[in-house]
């Protein structure tokens, strides 16, 4: 077993575990005991692959970004998760989890969402399977993300406003957990990133690992190389990054770069750069690194990108950071917005602002010229047009 993957007890080094109240124990234990045998079953795999192909549109292209490569003087490939159905990598996970929920005989699905991308991806698979869907979303995010709220409702989901705490993603997650406590038997909670109690971080990473699985094949076909020199992705909770890194973790010569959101600047007091600002602690069921006060109260983060606006990171990322296997850096709002505009002008691709954070780091790197760099383009920018318009005054 890779030293970067979860161990039998649900830990990555000192991180992970299942810090959950006893009320959630039966649900989480059921998942712990069954997830591997279910997702490794041939009938599960067959349906998962079929849906990824025929419904999501996989494999997603590995696109050699010629003009972007010229600009930075190296060889850049974009893994086009933005071309997936519903516009981001989130659907890889929700397809996997809805099939798992079916196998477990669950009748009702709950989820949390920040910007609404994971909520839409969950509502989508619930419509596909005809299952009841309840999405918790911070009251403030509901106002900020009206089109995604409408999408979820069109697909038959019930969207419930989280009115506690700061009324954003962290609180939506709390509400989803409370719902699960109160509905322990028939409900499956589809968590949207590689966070939560074991086995969620590992389970979500496995569903997202299709990103690096395809990348390896595609790269070999296109370049004859078995591995790239560098893989990069943005990190909110860390699911697209976990998927992008998964099949390269044990190739120690592949450099792994994760880009967090620095908001107005790491030291501005308005940031979501968790590894720079956080300490070890427990949030939403796992031990990881999180932004918190000296008294252990969770700090509300800030980023222009709603999908990166989370005070923690998944336990595997905490371990990749602490062990030194991964390089964790950050990009500000301004750097990300400019990188998003640059990609649009050079390649005709409008990226999600989350993904723009990964692109922004290119500016800070130096290249010899013969590297192969793969960047996970986790989502498309349609949902962010309003933000781009306001920011650049189009």
């Amino acid at each position, binding site marked *: 077993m890779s030293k970067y993957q979860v161990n039998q007890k649900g830990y990555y080094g000192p991180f992970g575990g299942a810090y959950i109240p*006893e*009320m959630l*124990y039966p649900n989480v234990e059921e998942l712990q005991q069954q997830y591997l045998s279910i997702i490794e079953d041939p009938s599960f795999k067959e349906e998962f692959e079929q849906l990824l192909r025929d419904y999501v549109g996989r494999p997603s292209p590995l696109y050699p970004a010629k003009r972007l490569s010229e600009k930075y003087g190296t060889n850049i490939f974009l893994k086009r998760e933005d071309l997936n159905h519903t516009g981001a990598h989130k659907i890889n996970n929700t397809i996997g989890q809805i099939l798992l929920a079916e196998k477990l005989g669950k009748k009702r699905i709950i989820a949390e969402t920040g910007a609404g991308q994971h909520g839409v991806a969950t509502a989508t698979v619930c419509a596909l399977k005809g299952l009841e869907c309840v999405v918790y979303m911070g009251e403030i995010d509901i106002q900020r993300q009206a089109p995604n709220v409408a999408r979820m409702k069109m697909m038959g989901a019930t969207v419930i406003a989280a009115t506690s705490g700061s009324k954003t993603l962290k609180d939506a997650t709390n509400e989803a957990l409370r719902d699960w406590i109160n509905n322990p038997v028939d409900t499956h909670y589809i968590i949207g990133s590689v966070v939560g109690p074991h086995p969620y971080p590992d389970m979500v990473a496995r569903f997202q690992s299709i990103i690096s699985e395809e990348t390896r094949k595609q790269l070999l076909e296109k370049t004859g190389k078995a591995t790239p020199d560098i893989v990069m992705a943005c990190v909110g909770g860390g699911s697209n990054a976990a998927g992008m890194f998964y099949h390269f973790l044990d190739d120690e010569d592949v450099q792994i770069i994760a880009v967090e959101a620095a908001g107005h600047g790491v030291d501005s007091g308005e940031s979501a750069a968790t590894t720079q600002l956080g300490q*070890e602690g427990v949030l939403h069921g796992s031990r990881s690194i999180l932004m918190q006060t000296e008294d252990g109260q969770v700090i509300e983060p800030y980023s222009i990108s709603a999908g990166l606006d989370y005070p923690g990171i998944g336990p595997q990322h905490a371990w990749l950071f602490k062990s030194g296997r991964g390089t964790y850096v950050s990009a500000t709002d301004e750097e990300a917005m400019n990188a998003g505009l640059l990609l649009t002008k050079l390649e005709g691709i409008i990226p999600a602002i989350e993904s723009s954070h990964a692109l922004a780091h290119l500016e800070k790197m130096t290249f010899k010229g013969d590297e192969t760099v793969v960047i996970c383009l986790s989502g498309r920018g349609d949902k962010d047009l309003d933000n781009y318009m306001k920011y650049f005054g189009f």
Partner: protein
Amino acid sequence: MQINKQANGLLSIYFTAGYPSLDSTLDIAEALEKAGADFLEIGFPYSDPVADGPTIQHSSEEALKNGMTLNILFEQLKDLRIRVSIPVYLMGYVNPVIQYGVENFCNKCKEVGVNGTIIPDLPMYEYEELYQDVFKENGISNIFLVTPQTSEARIRKIDDLSTSFIYLLSSNATTGKQLAIQEQSEAYFKRIKDMDLKNPVVIGFGIHDRDTFRKATSYVNGAIVGTAFVKLLAADSYLDKISDFIQGIK
């Protein structure tokens, strides 16, 4: 009064430290003992209390706004054993404890005379592997929860690990869902009673009046009232109302 297997009809009250005002903690504790409460759970607030319903969430939020921290709470509790003699347990979430330092936390509990802790999101496995030794060295009892879904084998394990009492949740729910005692909950209480556990058992969550208190304590040693009491603290001159509140239940 001791919490032991022979005791019956014990009433415990939960309230959040720092609510309704920063320095209300010991006044409330003292008034509760005078009014006849048998032991206390003092909550230390957390920003993300996932096991709590709206009332206790609100009290935690207000307590944090009032400036409550574990440091301040331990400062306030320096006088605990001058003013209060019944057993006192601290209840809260694990992250503030980790940030404070588990060892520091246990030392402080011992120093001020706290008897034990209830930390819902610190599960048995993590407690055993990481924390048990420190708790034991300081003589601090950690209390575990049992729900209607907890398996018999797990309850036995909890009984082995426990050193004070077992906290039986009336139903699988967040705090503040009023308990309507039905046949199924009575069957569950009876099942636990018949297991004849080594530790005393106390029922919590949803106990809010004399009727639910009586029903619960007919099966086990005691019951805990939280949300219903925290609601009372929102009233003016709440200290004067505590005696009637306790009499109304016990």
